[in-house]
Each structure stands twice: as C-alpha cells, then as structure tokens.
C-alpha cells in the first residue's frame, strides 16, 4: 500500500514543498537582492553573507539535492521524543548552504562522503503531514 503524499501537508512549509513527481522535495530559498546569495530558510531576517534585510527578496524553489559532507548515527535521543537510531548528515545543498538533514534508513554502509543525495517526503505518523528525509540520488552508490 502506498500513501498519496499529495494530500499531506509539509511538516515545515517554510522549508520545503512537494515536487511535481509527488515524492521529491523542493527547497524554498530567498535570493538576496543585494548580493545574490541564496538564503535558507527563506524567512531568515537577514542575508548571512552581506547582512541585507531580505525585504521583498525573491522566493525561489530549487530541487532538494545536494552532496553528503559527513554523517553520524545518533544512538540516544538527544531531544525529547526523538526516535533513534537515526543518521544525521551535513549536506551541501545545490542552492549553496550547508544544512543538517536526516537520512532515510539507519544503515551507514549505504553512505559515503561525497554521495549525491536528494530530499524526499516521508509521511509522518499523524497521517496529515510529511517530513524531509534524504536518500541517495538514483544511480549513486556507496
């Protein structure tokens, strides 16, 4: 049985939205009108590069793809209610910034530094929202 994610809402609407394929995620950025840097999330109150307040900054969606920079398995719940084990990963997003994300799955052997990854929607247990998880891009192997 598959879940039609198109009927669900994003867990963080300010960060991502469902892409046209109904599975991948697009990330939402603000383009700094002063220096052109892509700010993430789009609702940050200033450009970390030049300090522009980003008022009236253009909002753009980009495919949630990137490159795996580092990853570790979290063995204990570091925050209340957190499910473990999980793999936290630093990812160089194609849009520019480095963000910590969560990998789908718990098998580190499927990963390597430099692996191309993409963001996909994963339904949350509440049945109403989807979260962001990263998976290897098609054709990429560990």
């Amino acid at each position, binding site marked *: 049985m598959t879940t039609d994610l198109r009927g669900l809402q994003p867990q963080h609407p300010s*960060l*991502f939205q469902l892409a046209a394929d109904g599975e991948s995620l697009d990330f939402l950025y603000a383009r700094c009108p002063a220096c052109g840097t892509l700010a993430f999330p789009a*609702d940050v109150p200033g450009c970390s590069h030049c300090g522009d307040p980003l008022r009236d900054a253009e909002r753009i969606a980009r495919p949630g793809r990137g490159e795996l920079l*580092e990853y570790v398995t979290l063995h204990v719940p570091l925050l209340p209610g*957190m499910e473990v084990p999980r793999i936290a990963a630093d990812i160089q997003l194609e849009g520019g910034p480095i963000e910590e994300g969560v990998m789908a799955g718990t098998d580190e052997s499927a990963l390597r530094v430099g692996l191309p990854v993409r963001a996909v929607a994963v339904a949350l247990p509440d049945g109403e929202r989807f979260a962001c998880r990263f998976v290897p891009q098609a054709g990429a192997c560990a």
Partner: protein
Amino acid sequence: MSSWIDDNDGVYVAGIGMHAYQFPSETPYTQLGLTAVRAALADAGLAWPQVHSAYVGTTSIGMAAGRVMFRHLGSTGLAVTQVENASASGSFAFRQACMELATGVSDVVLAVGVDKHGDGRRAADKEGLARLSETANVPAVKFAMMARTYLRERSADAQAMAQVAVKNHGNAARNPYAQFRKPRTLEQVMGSPRVAGDLTVQQCCPRGEGAAAAILVSGRGMRRLGLDPARCVRVRASTACSETPESRYGAAAVDLVRASATAALAQAGVPASRLDLLELHDAFSVEELIYSEAIGVCEPGDGAAYLLRGDSQIGGRCAINASGGLIGMGHPLGPTGIGQIAEITRQLRGEAEGRQHAGATWGMAHMIGLGSVAIAHVLSRADA
C-alpha cells in the same frame, strides 16, 4: 610591547575558591556560590567589603543571581554584573573583571561562576526558524561529525580520541574539585554506551553544578593591600572573538579557536611552545585533539600522536586539562571558565597537590561557547 592588560600596573589573580563540581542536587545555588567566594576571599587574605565590583557568570539560575547570593556576605553596595555566554559565561565574567581593573575603575574585583543544571534556555530555540533536522543546534551531533572528519583525514581510529577521555578522567581522579574521581581505562571508555557517531558517553562532559571564584586585583591594588606577589598570578592576555564564515567545511570551530588563541599569545608575547599548561573546552573528546593543533601546542595533524607520546600529560611538554577538563572535572557552564583559571593559578603557584605539573610558568585558559564565541586568557607566574 605593552597592551591594555598591563595598564594600572597589571592584572593579577590574588585568590581562588571552588565548590566541587557535582551531579545535579537539591543544594541551593547560593550555597555553591558562597562556598567558592568565601574560599577565594580567604585565599587572597581579603574581606568582602574590600571588593569593589563583582561579575557573575551563570547560564541557568535566573535574573540577579549575584544580588541574591551576595547579600549573605553583607550588603556592601558593590557593583554587580551578571554575564551569560553559554559555556564561556565564567570566562567572560573573568574578562570583564580584567578590563575593569586595567582601566582603573576598580582595584579589587570578584569573578564568580555558579550554576545549577536544568533551567538553561537556548536562544537558538527561539529564533523562529524551522530546520531540516531538529538536532541542527545540538552540539553532540556537530562534534560527532567533526570527530568523523578529523579521524578520517588523519587515518586515525576512534581509540585515538578516546585516549583524551582516559587522560582527563585520570587527571580528574587527582582533583578534589572534580565531578568524576575515578580513572578510566581505554576499554572502559570505548565500551561505555555510544551517544553519537564514535563518541561514547565517557567521552562527553557530564551534566552538573558547582561554583568557582577568583579575586582579581590590579598591580596598584596588590601593593596597596600588601598582598604577597609570590601568590599572585599575572593575567598576560585576554582576547575574545566570534565565528566568521567557514574557510572550508567543518573549519569554523578550528578557525575560531585559532584566531582567539593566536591573538592571546601575541598579546602575552609568548609562542604556544612556551605554554606549560592548557585548559580547553573538551566537552567532547575530539575537541582536545583539534584545539591542541589549532592553538599550536602541537603541529597540525599531530594532536593524537602528541597525546599518545605523553606530551599532554601532567609532567609532559604541556599539561592539557590537568584539572580533568570538562570531561573529567565537569562542565557546569557558569563556573567552568573560572574553574580553568583556578586550576592554572593553583598550578602556577605550585599548589596543585597530587597533580602538580613541575616548573609551570605559563598557562592558557581557552573556552568556546556553543561553538560560536571564543575566549582565551594567558596567565603566568608574576616573576615570568
């Protein structure tokens, strides 16, 4: 070359006092703090009314922690200022005291760090911005990733950083003010439960509480009060900075530590090789390897080998975290930076019974706060 820290005939630590770090308890914070302050006054041979001003480093107690505590010493009307800067709160309280003395505003200043665990709130959680991962602001995750990168780049294994915890638990076992008092073997450290990545629980600092105090005087004040210069340790440098854009992935903390330490050594006028003592932020074991390279007591890439050769042991080239560090002595936040100062002062005086680093003349206390602020102090014997 003279710098601001030498004004008003210099800044000296005249007295130190501690309340041992311990696991969270029902002990009121006032009892922790007053124990440390009274010990520091006695150590300096001064009375409370002689103190002109006090800086209180704390993260989790609440507003006006100093006033509530100090009234039990007598309401003398002194200036009281509270300082919060995450792990570096005590270090920044100490720096404020140094600046007040060097400018001549006061001649006798107290810096005290005191904290209880459990009521700390992080500004990062109030930023109003969502994150792709809810652990994006959790230090254990960032340092576990730094550890992976560090070990991979140096072709080292997880034992290399676990050895930091073995050394520091061993030092803490000899420190009566430390939270942990048991030596740990490599097998015990490696075999303790895993937290994040290759970091096991015995490679992570504990939650705790405690207090540390230092009475600082200007050189002018030292003479006026007739204090014994042989027991006064001179503050040779105080520098602080915050993060800059990463030069490469994962380099932000290294850049931050290097910048603050380099500036402090320049202000003190000594190279890193002159440091006999180095207290640093080993909240997670790998930090000691990374920062010992960044500060320059060993060559880049030599951190793990430096440790394995015994160069960072008490009695080695530069005793790193002779107190036991954050891993062994503990990390109650507010007190931690002043606890470093107390340890270095005790060592430079030759009074660190049971863990004395022979011939100690120069020491650095280095601290970072939530990975984004850094602060360094260099201290020396007054006759150095």
